[in-house]
């Protein structure tokens, strides 16, 4: 039974009163957030604030103990492997690559749901399976080019410098053609120039982005709205200007920002 869109629920991803507990630890407490189509929304907060946990809730790795999720007004019961079909892609904090696959294969792996042929065609090596493979390969090449690592396609990911591995991870997310992209610390470990390039890439995307990042300049430059978490609780929400001026934020986070990647 297809559930009809709730007129009250907005398009895009919406989280309502999400709570997550790990035993006695409250990782998220009453967090609500709306990511409309095409918008870039940032989530910031000190280490352990619950940012990654928030992503894990959206992806179905962690079941919320309270609250609901909707996608375009429909209730969302996320399962990690179904996300790309729903138009949601995520990069992991760190790199999360397949060490035994080439860079190209790493990205092709993210395009699997675009395949039109199945097991039997592959088993007999039919030419329609070949055509399908070629299409996925072209898509993967295009995604790598877009992220500036097209020339690395045939290397193993661990032969690349860290910054390029993060681009490969981004390419794998983009190849699925997401409507919503979740980026968990994409600038971690990058230099200033690389961060500027990343910022330009994010701004140029045609999908909604939920960005978790410690690097304030990047967050302030690319986000239209920012949610601030502290010990799992939302402490502020607003445009970069509002967040920068908020004394609570300065105390909870910006004042404590001493770590440089």
């Amino acid at each position, binding site marked *: 039974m297809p559930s009809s869109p709730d007129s009250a629920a907005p398009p895009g991803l919406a989280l309502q009163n999400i709570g997550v507990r790990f035993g006695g630890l409250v990782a998220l407490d009453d967090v609500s957030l709306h990511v409309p189509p095409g918008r870039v929304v940032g989530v910031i907060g000190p280490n352990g604030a619950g940012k990654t946990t928030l992503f894990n809730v959206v992806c179905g790795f962690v079941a919320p103990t309270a609250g609901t999720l909707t996608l375009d007004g429909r209730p969302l019961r996320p399962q990690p492997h179904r996300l790309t079909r729903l138009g949601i892609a995520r990069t992991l904090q760190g790199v999360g690559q397949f060490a035994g696959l080439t860079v190209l294969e790493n990205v092709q792996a993210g395009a*699997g749901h675009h395949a039109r042929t199945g097991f039997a065609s592959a088993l007999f090596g039919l030419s329609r399976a*070949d055509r399908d493979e070629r299409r996925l390969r072209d898509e993967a090449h295009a995604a790598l080019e877009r992220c500036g690592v097209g020339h690395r396609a045939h290397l193993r990911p661990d032969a690349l410098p860290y910054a390029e591995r993060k681009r490969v991870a981004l390419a794998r997310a983009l190849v699925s053609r997401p409507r919503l992209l979740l980026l968990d610390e994409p600038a971690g470990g990058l230099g200033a120039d690389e961060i500027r390039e990343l910022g330009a890439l994010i701004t140029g995307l045609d999908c909604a982005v939920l960005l978790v990042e410690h690097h304030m300049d990047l967050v302030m430059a690319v986000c239209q709205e920012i949610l601030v978490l502290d010990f799992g609780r939302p402490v502020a929400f607003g445009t970069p200007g509002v967040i920068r001026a908020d004394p609570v934020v300065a105390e909870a986070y910006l004042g404590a920002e001493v770590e440089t990647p």
Partner: protein
Amino acid sequence: MTGRTWLRHLAFLLPAAVAVLALTYLLPPFRTYQLATVGAYLCVTAGLTVLTGLNGQLSLGHGALMATGAYTLALTQNALAGRGQWTLLVSTAAAVVVTTAVGAVIGCAAARLRGPYLAGLTLAVAVVVPSVTSTFESVFNSDQGLSVALDPPPLALGATFPYERWQAWLSWAGALLTLFLLANLVRGRFGRNLRAVRDDEAAARLAGISVARTQVSAFVVSAACAGLGGALFAVLAQSVSPGAFPLTLSLFLLMAVVIGGLGSLTGAVCGAVLLVALPAATHSLTDAVHVSPAVAQRLEGNLPLAVFGVVLIVVMLALPGGLASLGRTLRRERPDP
């Protein structure tokens, strides 16, 4: 790397088929029989290397899956006895189907387990399956096993056609078909998903790959190959008994694919050759040194295992990627012109 996959893989296998065909005319009967045995082992090692090498699932139960295929073939073949050559095709298909079904059940359980727990589960399978034969004595005739009623080679091949040659043809038809299908399968999305799941489950999920489904399919494919291998074994031995599928068989199979090179079909070929060649070599060695019958009997079972262990260690030290990586290693060490 363009062109049609099936055509390219066929181009690899046709010369192999011709070579096997030639060998069956050149080798003496006993060697031909050994060649046939390599073919039967090859079905199993190819399937196992896909499961363990590409998907990272360890199986100590492939000997038991072979037993499943062998017994299914024996029972079906005996039930259909005397109706013609085609019955072998039916009973082989039955063996593959039944073993695939058993593999699906084990695979579903295996997909929930990791590392030592998975090894434990498959070990349990290896122990339980042979003991089923003594529980249902009336069907499986317990330790004596069953003999398999097989037709002689087709008369069209001539009245004096050697039986070993016919066996080698049968087993290599199965082996080359297995290699062809597996090679097709692993070079595309299926194979990529197997490796992605092996390397990072969380990242694989986020890439849209169902980890459980991938692992179960890997087990099913691998079991189908083991079933075919087992069926061919029954055809070669013309009998089946629990003693033919001991726990050590599963260990040998696993060592063979590691020595050959995990995840490589070329490695599976090397492994299958070793499975026949090493025990034979040890046997002729013990024959040559004239030990007392009592000692010889004790060595009989254990020595091949020890030899395999030593070869495993030596190969892993010299070539961590297994025998299949020999070519690659040599090419890398030779300076580019």
